[in-house]
């Protein structure tokens, strides 16, 4: 019994450490979750950086805000909504499909279809313009002679001369 109580006393520092580990920045799980979320959010000060990687003061403040909300038990969607309600859809690297993002979402496909259509049309037109010309016997002989007798072609067929 005496040994058990000594053992328990020895364990006390471990418990005190456990309470310290809940400190926000030092909580690796929460930090990882925060970074994971912040990587998909844009920093408004330096717009080509994510909230996770930016060193701008505002980004630091927003990361602090996100940490605190995660600690409060808000889920990722609620936190994203919180930021969107203040800064707009612009904070999202993955913009939602809305009336004014239709061009952004579907514009490339429209252009692709348009380009594909023009290409298809042009190829069809060209095909009808090409007429097969019959080779005369003389041409066939000349081609065969060139192919068979050319030493370059026989020795290194893959290296055409410049």
């Amino acid at each position, binding site marked *: 019994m005496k040994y058990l109580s000594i053992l328990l006393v020895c364990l006390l520092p471990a418990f005190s450490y456990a309470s310290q580990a809940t400190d926000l920045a030092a909580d690796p799980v929460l930090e990882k979750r925060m970074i994971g979320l912040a990587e998909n959010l844009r920093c408004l000060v330096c717009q080509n950086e994510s909230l996770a990687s930016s060193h701008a003061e505002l980004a630091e403040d927003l990361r602090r805000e996100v940490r605190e909300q995660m600690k409060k038990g808000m889920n990722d969607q609620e936190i994203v909504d919180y930021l969107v309600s203040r800064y*707009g859809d612009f904070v999202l690297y993955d913009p939602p499909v809305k009336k004014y993002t239709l061009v952004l979402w579907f514009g490339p496909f429209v252009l692709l279809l348009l380009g594909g259509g023009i290409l298809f049309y042009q190829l069809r037109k060209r095909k009808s313009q090409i007429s097969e010309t019959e080779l005369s016997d003389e041409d066939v002989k000349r081609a065969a002679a060139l192919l068979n007798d050319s030493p370059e072609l026989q020795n290194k067929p893959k290296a055409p001369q410049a």
Partner: protein
Amino acid sequence: MMRFILPFIVFMIMAAFLYVGLSLDPHEVPSPLIGKAAPAFTLPQLQEPSKNFSPQDMKGKVWLFNVWASWCTACESEHAVLLDLSRQNLVPIYGMDYKDKRQDGEAWLRERGNPYALVVSDVEGRVGIDYGVYGVPETYVIDKQGVIRHKQIGPVTPQNLSEKILPLIKELQAK
């Protein structure tokens, strides 16, 4: 003929898009707060920290809420415009010293003059986040019902003041 016209049309369309793109400022992110109630807060005043201010105190008035800081270089050019505006007594200007040391903010106003009816101090920048502040200076036009009607991102200039902000204020005051 089509060989030349078609590429030319494509070129003109692209040129038009690029030309419009030149005049757009990617740093001006439209605020989702326009048309919404100004977020509530209670902050200590800059010069008298024992007194608080909150936007609810302004119900029934059209007012400007200007976010500035002593470390903000663009605020210097704006300051003269705000001083000029305050002398005209057209609209009360309330300021928020954003993420600034209290002494620095006070000194700044002492040296350059104070256009504000009152200044609050947001040392930690939390109210700034609620208002979607991402670059000072920013100025909000808030109507009698406490709704944000306009957000000026970047300094208030004589031009945007006379073209947009003052006409809007007059319109809102008449309501």
